[in-house]
């Protein structure tokens, strides 16, 4: 028998034997539980289904949740890596420090149409509209869950929640008593260490303090003269106290500092020299958040939350600092037994300073911008099986003025296993500091006439009307099918245009180039998730998403914004398996992205090839307190690229790491 024939035979045998030999596992476990005494039963650790999860099953939105178990078993060492598990999200790593995370098209490293909240604190920056993923550091072991809503969430969360919202929630200090220590070494993630200590003070205050440090190797790029290595240290704490019946308090904070290498300058202008040599951004920041929540009756509560956030980025091309102050009040109440009403008001001040490194300036250098908003949402239970959720956010911001972002959603749950939902929503993406205040000489500064890229105070918000529908089917305890469909109509998209020429102080002709709302477009797509748990110890999930994008501009569109339609793969597929065998865990994740047709930033109009990737993680619980894991990443090829221009993108190599985790309660 040839080797190939033998292989095929044993694979088939394995596939048949696996289900047959395990048919009794469920009842075996029950029999084992029945042998336990009451005291022993009280000591069994269980996995629980939260009220939240039950609500999610009936939610009228395309929502996906990563649990702490998902995060742990993904082997992700950073938040954007973990987001690769979410169906329909396009996560593309450009280099060691830059990721593009996008939902439903418009993929770019700015991810401008995706709102990201960390324990309700917005980490979407108003400078370039997007998330600086390189400084979003987490001790992933203390993250409780990540909820991802694809589609607009603006009626609740406000502007920029256009194509999606990511809600990262860390665990309560009540749930992180004891010590935790992790250390890892690898060839890309060269070295990292994390530690946490938690407990309860004599006064009943639960607390934890934690620290983390990582050192990540750069990626390969033969064109680059600079390395994109990354290093970051992070300290944080969280306290929770009070009670659910009276008043509950949370206080938390972080501080971090690091060095983020770059392959190429963040801003390049043809024909003008940019920063040379090794390019490294010195990043630092911190935040402090306090939350107070008091029940005001059955199924109603009042919450006040305030935070301060500081970020500083000392980049070779600019020095940017941002202070954010945010206060938010929310009241949830039930009325007339059928209505669950949530309303709230909030105010935010962003005090930004951007000091030029020479190539461009942001004028004025310092800007204080205010955002005032209010929202109300009513979830009406029309019958046991039909619920309507209607709501709107109304806000006033210093970039585009008044914005109204309503949504109406309906969920029909004829029985607990089936949910059919539909939604229509409006959402906007507000302009950024760069779009409003930038000033770049786009040709030789001595030339006459001179092309100058200028911010445009008349540039308004980009607008979306989204039509969505979905079907969720919990076929059995072990099988979930979740399908979402969308049709998004965009209007007033950014398009870079030539303005009216004028004479500057020196009598030269300046031809202004500025953003106008001349773009429009339509995207359509489907996202499918199938989760199957054939056995208590084996979980499989499959995801597939497809999208079609049409973007156009009625103007010149000098910056090729319409090319954004090419930057999202038309199809993405994923397959994931998690197997637990006594003290061992075997996790495998496969993904395939179809080609990127072209990248907006790449003048040549070139795209990137399709790619497939496989990650495998082996976990071994050596003792109840100690877990060792081994991870292999990008196993299918020596290296591949995922995103970015030829100068800015790095090749992601096959890699491995080894990690030890020790926890003691």
């Amino acid at each position, binding site marked *: 028998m040839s080797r190939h024939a033998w292989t095929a035979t*044993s694979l088939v045998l*394995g596939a048949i034997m696996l289900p047959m030999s395990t048919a009794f596992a469920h009842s075996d*476990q029950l029999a084992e539980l029945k042998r336990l005494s009451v005291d022993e039963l*009280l*000591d069994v*650790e269980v996995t*629980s289904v939260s009220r939240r999860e039950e609500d999610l099953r009936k939610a009228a939105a395309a929502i996906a949740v990563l649990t702490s178990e998902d995060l742990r078993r993904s082997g992700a060492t950073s938040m954007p890596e973990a987001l690769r598990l979410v169906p329909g999200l396009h996560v593309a790593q450009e280099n060691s420090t830059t990721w593009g995370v996008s939902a439903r098209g418009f993929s770019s490293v700015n991810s401008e149409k995706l709102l990201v909240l960390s324990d309700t604190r917005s980490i979407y920056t108003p400078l370039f509209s997007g998330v600086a993923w390189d400084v979003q550091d987490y001790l992933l072991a203390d993250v409780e869950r990540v909820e991802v809503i694809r589609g607009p969430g603006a009626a609740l969360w406000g502007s920029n929640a256009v194509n999606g919202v990511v809600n990262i929630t860390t665990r309560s200090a009540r749930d992180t008593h004891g010590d935790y220590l992790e250390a890892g070494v690898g060839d890309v993630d060269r070295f990292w260490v994390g530690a946490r200590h938690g407990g309860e003070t004599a006064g009943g205050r639960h607390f934890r303090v934690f620290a983390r440090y990582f050192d990540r190797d750069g990626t390969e790029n033969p064109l680059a003269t600079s390395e994109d290595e990354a290093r970051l240290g992070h300290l944080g704490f969280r306290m929770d106290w009070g009670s659910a019946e009276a008043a509950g308090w949370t206080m938390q904070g972080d501080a971090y500092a690091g060095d983020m290498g770059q392959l190429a300058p963040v801003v390049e202008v043809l024909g003008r020299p940019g920063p040379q040599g090794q390019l490294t951004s010195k990043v630092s920041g911190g935040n402090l958040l306090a939350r107070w929540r008091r029940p005001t009756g059955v199924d109603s509560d009042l919450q006040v939350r305030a935070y301060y956030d500081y970020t500083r980025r000392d980049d070779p091309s600019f020095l940017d600092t941002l202070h954010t102050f945010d206060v938010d009040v929310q009241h949830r109440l039930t009325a007339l037994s059928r209505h669950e009403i949530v309303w709230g008001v909030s105010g935010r001040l962003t005090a930004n300073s951007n000091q030029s490194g020479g190539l461009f300036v942001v004028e004025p250098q310092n800007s204080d911008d205010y955002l005032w908003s209010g929202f109300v949402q009513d979830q009406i239970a029309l019958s046991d099986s039909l619920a309507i959720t209607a709501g709107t956010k109304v806000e006033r911001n210093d970039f585009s003025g008044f914005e109204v972002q309503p949504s109406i959603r309906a969920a029909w749950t004829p029985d607990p296993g089936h949910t059919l939902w539909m939604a229509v929503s409006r959402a906007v993406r507000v302009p950024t500091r760069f779009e409003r205040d930038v000033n770049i000489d786009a040709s030789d500064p001595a030339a006459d006439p001179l092309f100058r890229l200028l911010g445009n105070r008349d540039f308004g918000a980009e607008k979306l009307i989204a039509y969505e529908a979905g079907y969720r089917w919990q076929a059995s*305890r072990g099988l979930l099918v979740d399908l979402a469909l969308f049709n998004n109509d965009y209007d007033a998209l950014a398009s870079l245009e030539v303005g009216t020429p004028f004479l500057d102080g020196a009598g030269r002709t300046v031809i202004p180039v500025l953003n106008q709302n001349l773009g429009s477009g339509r995207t359509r797509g489907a996202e499918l998730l199938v989760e199957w748990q054939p056995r*208590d*110890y084996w979980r499989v999930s499959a995801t597939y998403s497809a999208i079609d994008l049409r973007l156009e501009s009625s103007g010149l569109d000098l910056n090729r914004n319409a090319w954004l339609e090419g930057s999202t793969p038309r199809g993405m597929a994923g397959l994931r398996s998690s197997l637990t065998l006594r003290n061992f865990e075997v996790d495998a994740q496969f993904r395939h992205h179809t080609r990127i047709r072209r990248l907006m930033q790449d003048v040549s109009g070139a795209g990137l090839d399709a790619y497939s990737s496989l990650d495998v993680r082996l976990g071994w619980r050596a003792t109840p307190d100690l877990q060792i894991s081994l991870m292999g990443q990008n196993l299918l090829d020596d290296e591949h690229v995922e995103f970015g221009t030829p100068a800015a993108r790095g090749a992601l190599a096959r890699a491995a790491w080894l990690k030890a985790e020790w926890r003691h309660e």
Partner: protein
Amino acid sequence: MRVSVLARLALVAASFLPALASAQPGEYQVKAVFLFNFGQFVEWPSDSYDTPQAPFVICVVGEDPFGKTLDDVVRGEAIGSRTLVVRRFSDADGISRCNILFVGRNDAGMLDEALAAARGHSVLTVTDVDGAESNGAIIVLYNDRQRIRMRINIAAAKANHLVISSKLLRPAEVVGTEGS
């Protein structure tokens, strides 16, 4: 070559699988076993059964969080000479014939109605709605981080003519004692 090694591993793993148990049982597997155990640690008055052959009845009112787990737990089991059966009710009508009655927190809206219907009858009311002991539930199974805890309202048990064994009371948090 790599493929054939993987295949061999799969074959070896498969032959060991029957002996394996999963890492963590589900919350409602453990709660189902609790319900079963309560039948052995609580005494019902003899007049709570119509006939000497009447089965011991565990009822789930409202949305059932157990799936088929509860049926699996009681299959082939008996309390004394009585067989165990599971019945499901969409509302509180007719629940006074239940020995144990469970209301899940996924359908907490049913709680007050079910407790009212059970009051004064020899029905052991159990729920996992946290804090329900103050509404008159007899046993509350609540989650404390990853473990399940038990709170017993002894006054409510007395009102329903039930005697709870010290084996159950000792590890539980007891409320509703005289003078409290």
